[in-house]
């Protein structure tokens, strides 16, 4: 299965590239990444507890960064296995400057293989799920790249939840007043 897409991040290319190659940042941005340990030069062992909605699984595997050409390109190779099956993928990430250097356009193209239960029962949703995770990843990455160095990193799960609650709370207040 091919996945590809483009995301524009409001952050400078150098910062984005740095975030993209920082294992601590990656761990925070990859949806459900519980562990990302360095095992060698640009290679990591990873544990992902990930999924979409109620559909979740735990995958153990490796992440490797290749063809690193800062700040414009690298290739990520992922290999994971778990109870619901396996996933293998590799993708090229190309970063281009945009908005007079204040923004970065990331183009990704990749090939993902899935096997086991997820391949044989998730046919109609795999592509959507991949897109969704990519989108989550880049949204989190944008927040990371925007943080000022030295500030505590954003906490994405909490952040999203808080935002939802906050908007709901605002709306409630608004609705109560309008009654």
């Amino acid at each position: 299965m091919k996945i590809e897409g483009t995301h524009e991040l409001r952050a400078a290319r150098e910062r984005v590239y740095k975030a993209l190659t920082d294992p601590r940042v990656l761990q925070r941005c990859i949806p459900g990444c519980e562990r990302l340990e360095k095992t060698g030069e640009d290679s990591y062992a990873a544990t992902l507890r990930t999924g979409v909605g109620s559909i979740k699984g735990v995958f153990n595997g490796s992440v490797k960064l290749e063809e690193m050409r800062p700040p414009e390109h690298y290739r990520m190779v992922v290999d994971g296995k778990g109870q619901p099956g396996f996933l293998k993928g590799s993708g090229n990430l190309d970063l281009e400057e945009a908005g007079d250097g204040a923004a970065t356009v990331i183009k990704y193209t990749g090939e993902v293989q899935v096997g086991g239960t997820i391949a044989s029962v998730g046919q109609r949703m795999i592509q959507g799920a991949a897109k969704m995770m990519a989108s989550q990843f880049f949204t989190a990455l944008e927040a990371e790249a925007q943080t000022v160095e030295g500030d505590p990193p954003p906490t994405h799960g909490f952040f999203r939840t808080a935002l939802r609650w906050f908007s709901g709370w605002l709306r409630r207040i608004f609705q109560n007043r309008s009654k």
Partner: protein
Amino acid sequence: MIPAQFDYVAPATIDEAVSLLSQHQDEAKILAGGHSLIPAMKLRLAQPQLLIDIGRIKDLSYINEQDGQIRIGAMTTHYQLESNERLRAICPLLPECAAHIGDVQVRNKGTIGGSVAHADPAGDWPAAILALDAEMVAVGQQGERVIKAADFFVDMLTTALAPGEILREIRINAQDVGGRLGQSYMKVAQPASGFAVVGVAVNLALDAGGVCQSSRIGITGVAVKAYRASGVENALKGRVLDSQIIAAAAEHAADAVDANEDLYASADYRRHLARVYTRRAIEAASSRAH
């Protein structure tokens, strides 16, 4: 097809359910009919440690009218909606949509709340919920809040419900504009699953001269989540709905939509079906309004 081990609890009140859910958070899932959750559990793609069955809570299954709204309890089954005579008169989109869901067995056990909260990208209800601009009443430890349909469907299988929140009720405002109501739901069913390859829900109001005063069009099955076809809606507004206007408007049904692909239909074909079925559904709705 045997699920992993889980605990099961059937609270008697919604407050108890909310309290259990906030205690267990991600480990728990709400069982509200189970026609998506149980199959996922049997495949072990979902392995919640606790199932909170809200099916035993009294008064979560109802269809009534209050304050100019139709109020539907989350545990109302598809069949109850399909067969409700009053709804056929005042909001025929609901029974029509319900009739397209799964098969008789699914409709007898599956619930609107369960389906909406699950937010399957090809579920039928999200299209109707959007077209009716429904309000979702969520209850959590902090109390109740109302989520508008437009904000509710966030992504594939993801809604605006916060962890710890349960969808309690769905409210539909009585038609907010004067004039004649025209509704319809049309669907291309995937031959294996019966889910929507494309499902189009149309809710429009025409004035005495046949001019479209408002229209809301919800489309499911095409993208990662159901969406409002605002391009179509804009093209209908203020126009007399003849076949040319409708056909031209329906061309916008999949504008800027990143369409799904599966074994049955490519993204292109899905977008095409969305346009064709939007046109057909508007024509049906419009003819019913006349």
